[in-house]
């Protein structure tokens, strides 16, 4: 009986990656940005991060207990959501608001729709938009210690007035903004790690940031320094590298990913230059999340040997 032929359906070759492993990679990749946030903004940033992560895990565990579902806290995705959301919040946000936002991300956006893999939109980005509309404290400018805050505005609003900012400051994160989004350097380190581990592909980040750069260049009439300042400020890097690349809510094919990235870049620039909100990255990702199923159905690959539709 040992020599019985085993027949199973495809796929026959499985990768070794597991959800937990991928989530662990994302957490590791987010560490530089988290450390940079704590260094730049002080201990209050650490409290925000701790609040979000603890609330996220507690919410998911409690929800699964109450609805008697299999416990999914072990896949670490709740920690990723909590950490990502924390990095998108200003360091001085009241902690109860951070907790309410995290609760919204986990319960309303993720668990009610059926947990990881069934959420229609990215929980962290949706919670950010929710908090942007719900709480006034989200739009206030917060500055790292030791930075001249007399200008009293985030780089995006300074740029909108037509003034210039130091590119190096933007790159290192010495400017106002959410606690994890300011340091492009730390975010890039995390992004390169994810690329090297093949957790994400280059398509979405490159097309997202690239299209935003080109459009900014167009609006700024060819001024490359100004265009660079536009893409280095705000939440573009954290959005493009960590949030737009969420497996569940982004296309699966390379072509689809390019469409997704370019669409998000275009919406970001449109909101930044012509919208009422100073930052458009979260709206861009949220809108592209919603049209994601259509992009996927546009880019279905022809089965080898299959007929044309």
């Amino acid at each position, binding site marked *: 009986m040992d020599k019985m032929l085993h027949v199973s359906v495809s796929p026959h070759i499985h990768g070794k990656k597991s959800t937990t492993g991928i989530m662990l990679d994302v957490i590791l990749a987010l560490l530089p940005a988290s450390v940079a946030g704590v260094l730049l903004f002080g201990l209050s940033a650490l409290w925000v991060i701790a609040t979000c992560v603890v609330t996220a895990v507690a919410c998911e565990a409690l929800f699964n207990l109450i609805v008697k579902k299999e416990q999914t806290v072990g896949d670490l995705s709740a920690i990723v959501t909590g950490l990502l959301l924390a990095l998108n919040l200003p360091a001085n946000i009241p902690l*109860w608001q951070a907790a*309410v936002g995290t609760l919204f991300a986990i319960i*309303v956006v993720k668990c*009610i729709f059926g947990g990881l893999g069934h959420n229609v939109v990215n929980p962290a980005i949706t919670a950010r938009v*929710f908090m942007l*509309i*719900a*709480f*006034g404290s989200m739009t206030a400018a917060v500055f790292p210690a030791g930075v001249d805050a007399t200008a009293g505005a985030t780089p995006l609003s300074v740029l909108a007035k037509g003034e210039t900012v130091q590119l190096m400051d933007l790159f290192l994160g010495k400017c106002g903004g959410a606690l994890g989004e300011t340091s492009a350097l730390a975010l890039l380190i995390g992004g390169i790690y994810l690329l090297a581990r093949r957790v994400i592909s280059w398509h979405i980040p490159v097309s997202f940031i690239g299209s935003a750069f080109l459009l900014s260049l167009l609006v700024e009439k060819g001024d490359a320094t100004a265009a660079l300042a536009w893409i280095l400020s705000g939440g573009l890097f954290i959005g493009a590298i960590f949030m737009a690349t969420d497996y569940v809510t982004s296309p699966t094919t390379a072509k689809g990913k390019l469409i997704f990235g370019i669409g998000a870049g275009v919406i970001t620039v449109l909101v930044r230059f012509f919208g009422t909100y100073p930052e458009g990255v979260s709206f861009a990702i949220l809108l592209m999340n919603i049209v994601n199923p259509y992009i996927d159905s546009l880019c279905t690959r022809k089965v080898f040997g299959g007929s044309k539709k």
Partner: protein
Amino acid sequence: MKKENTMSVLLKGLLRENPVFVLILGTCPTLATTTTVTGAFGMGLATLAVLVCSNIVISALRKFIPDTVRIPCYIVVIAGFVTVVQMLIQAFIPDLYETLGVYLALITVNCIILGRAEMFAGKNPIGRSALDGIGMGLGFTLALLAMATVREVLGAGTFAGMEIPFLVDHKIELMAKAPGGLMVYGILIAVVNKITKGKVIKKKEFSCAGCPAAAECAGGCAEAVKEEQ
């Protein structure tokens, strides 16, 4: 068609065929007037009054109204009662009149009232129609109160204008705005579905089996769809 008992005519509007959470009618005033408990209560009672009166009159006139022009006739009756209620509120409760604004006049085109006229009052005797109006009106009022309670407590930290100690400093303003309204609405529909164990809506496709109003409608809309095709 099996005749419903009188108690069921009165009670079905409260939960089993709640106009807001099960029939999904009258969503516009539901979202617009539930930012405060007081406004929601006033809106609910005003609609209840119009609904009962119009159900009685339409039921009384059901043998005289020609089938082909029944909708305009219903609207005229409803608009008449809305005007009466509007003037009464303006005269005696001017504050509520200010709060509700245009939505008071818009009761005329509230689909719950026209829906009950079309589905129930146009086919049933006066007594039963009045009971149906009371049940549906109370169901509407309760639904508005449920939504307004959640939205006002979370969004403004108050209940009917009274401040709630802890929440007033921790308000989530979004709840009082349109997106918050839609979120609360969706979650409450889910809760009602859970309480009724989804028995109300059995099939998802558009058919009489999946329609909670099928009992009164007796396949009327399915015939209409067939005629169009």
